[in-house]
């Protein structure tokens, strides 16, 4: 029983990282209605920029974190310009394949510059385990959870209390109507992209700092964890992204503990598949009529 609670707790902390990735995905999908496969790889660029600064200047975790976020934002801008801004409306498939091409490019770029298989990444410092009623929690995990909650709070304020947030929500709801209201949709998309990349950068930093090895496979993992978590929660929904991320984290953790790594990944995809078949709207699905309407709008 204590193991069960322990695994659930660990799952929630990892899930918090996935939730941040899923939020970034959902933001981009919300304003663009297009899938950005290069989201994970652009975060990976940030993570490698962080590693570079760590290895060459022996920097502490704060400069590394800042470099990670900046790298993710720069790569995100590149992706937005190449794959979304430049490709005209009505060519969503071309956009998606283009993000895949950029993904390949970024991954190869990283393997050329960093030829080793794995690299070190700074941890958040030597920290003790916190113990409570027989449960253990790594202090880094607690920090990760805290930062994730903080980010979600800030994002909520940004989306629901500012003009920028209002315009993002307007574009997500109906781009044409938003344009008629005088919103510069191109600029909103660009800024939402930067916001999503920054969130992704923080998520990438947290995920790598608690498991301090960096590989070029990080881009693939980040894309798919974020994508699965977003789909589990329901596309375009931020509460859904959080729920999906935490659910994914918990399920993965339990399967890992019981059956090992293959079953962990298998369970994640099986969960996704079952959700798509039986509840395509995700955890946060509305009633059937609203869901049909939402699906028509979104896809």
């Amino acid at each position: 029983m204590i193991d069960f609670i322990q695994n659930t707790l660990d799952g929630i902390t990892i899930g918090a990282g996935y939730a941040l990735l899923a939020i970034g995905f959902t933001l981009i999908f919300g304003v663009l209605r297009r899938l950005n496969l290069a989201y994970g790889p652009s975060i990976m660029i940030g993570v490698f920029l962080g590693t570079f600064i760590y290895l060459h200047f022996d920097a502490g975790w704060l400069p590394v974190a800042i470099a990670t976020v900046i790298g993710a934002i720069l790569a995100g801008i590149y992706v937005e310009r190449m794959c979304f801004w430049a490709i005209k409306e009505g060519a969503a498939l071309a956009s998606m394949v283009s993000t895949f091409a950029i993904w390949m490019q970024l991954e190869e770029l990283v393997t050329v510059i960093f030829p080793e298989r794995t690299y070190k990444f700074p941890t958040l410092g030597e920290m003790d385990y916190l113990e409570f009623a027989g449960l253990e929690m790594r202090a880094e995990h607690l920090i990760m959870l805290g930062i994730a909650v903080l980010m979600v709070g800030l994002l909520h304020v940004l989306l629901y209390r500012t003009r920028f947030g209002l315009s993002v929500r307007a574009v997500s709801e109906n781009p044409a109507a938003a344009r008629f209201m005088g919103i510069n949709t191109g600029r909103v998309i660009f800024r939402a992209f930067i916001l999503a990349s920054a969130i992704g950068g923080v998520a990438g930093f947290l995920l790598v700092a608690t498991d301090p090895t960096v590989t070029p496979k990080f881009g693939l993992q980040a894309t798919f964890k974020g994508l699965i978590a977003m789909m589990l929660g329901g596309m375009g929904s931020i509460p859904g992204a959080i729920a999906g991320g935490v659910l994914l984290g918990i399920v993965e953790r339990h399967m890992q503990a019981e059956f090992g790594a293959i079953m962990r990944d298998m369970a994640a995809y099986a969960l996704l598949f079952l959700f798509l078949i039986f509840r395509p709207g995700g955890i946060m699905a509305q009633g059937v009529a609203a869901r049909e309407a939402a699906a028509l709008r979104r896809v």
Partner: protein
Amino acid sequence: MDEHLVSILTNIGGFTFIALSAYLLLLTGEISFGQQAFFGIGAYFSGIVTAMWGLSMWAAIPLTMLAAAFSAGLVGIITIRLRGLYFSIATLAFAEMVRLALVGTTWQVKIDGEMIGPNGSEGLGNIRWALDNNIEANDFMWIVLITLAIVMGLFFLMERSRLGSIFRTIGADRLLAETQGINVTAYKVAATALAGAIASLGGIFYAHAQTHVYPENFDVMLGVHSLAYGLIGGLGTALGPLLGVILDIGFLEAVEWVQGYRMIAFGGLVAVLLIFMPRGILDERRVHRLRMAFRTRKTEPPPAKTHDPAAS
């Protein structure tokens, strides 16, 4: 012929099958991220048939295509209600489950003092049908290329037939197709099954040319590549996927100075290409114009702007 060239041409042939299978689904308006599953099923199933059961590859081809068509049809039925991105992600999840199942499967039997069969992440080895029957790499290449020519020929026939226009109608506007009395569900399942069988053909040849396949050969990279090939080459004709594969494998394998930077060059090239040609090099308009140029009869108006499946 030069050994390197033979292996490149064999590879082009093998990968064109999976590109064609993704292209067939694109015609019906579906984006599949999961064709690599049927490529993998093709490689494993045919490898088991020839290496473990000792049958010939000619027997393995129909058996494998049937098995792949059956499993693809099943996936098609299960996912029939899903559209757009939901379908794409469901196929992706299915393909990853297949790959992980292959990683988790060990089933070996002793044949002539050697353990043969799928061995988890070590893959399936000893697929030596071509070697045992003294079929040289050169001959094997011709087997692949002739089969490819036959399949491409069938594609051209299909596209000019009623079936082809039904597929394109479903892809352009599902509702329109339904009001025309087309049984959309049946045609979609048929297209998925057919695409599965075509992808498995690529897997069969890949396995028998390589003699050893690993589950990691059939990861999502292969699936998205096969989708990209059709889009780069163009969605107007079955020659499009072939052109995409030739550009990637043929051109970039052959040009030596891009080795090691291949994806940096190719990725950037594809991204720029898609800005100017969002439906690929041989898109519907260009194919129509070419066709008109070779025909001296009265000119017909170009086809209406086709619908983008991902945007629906």
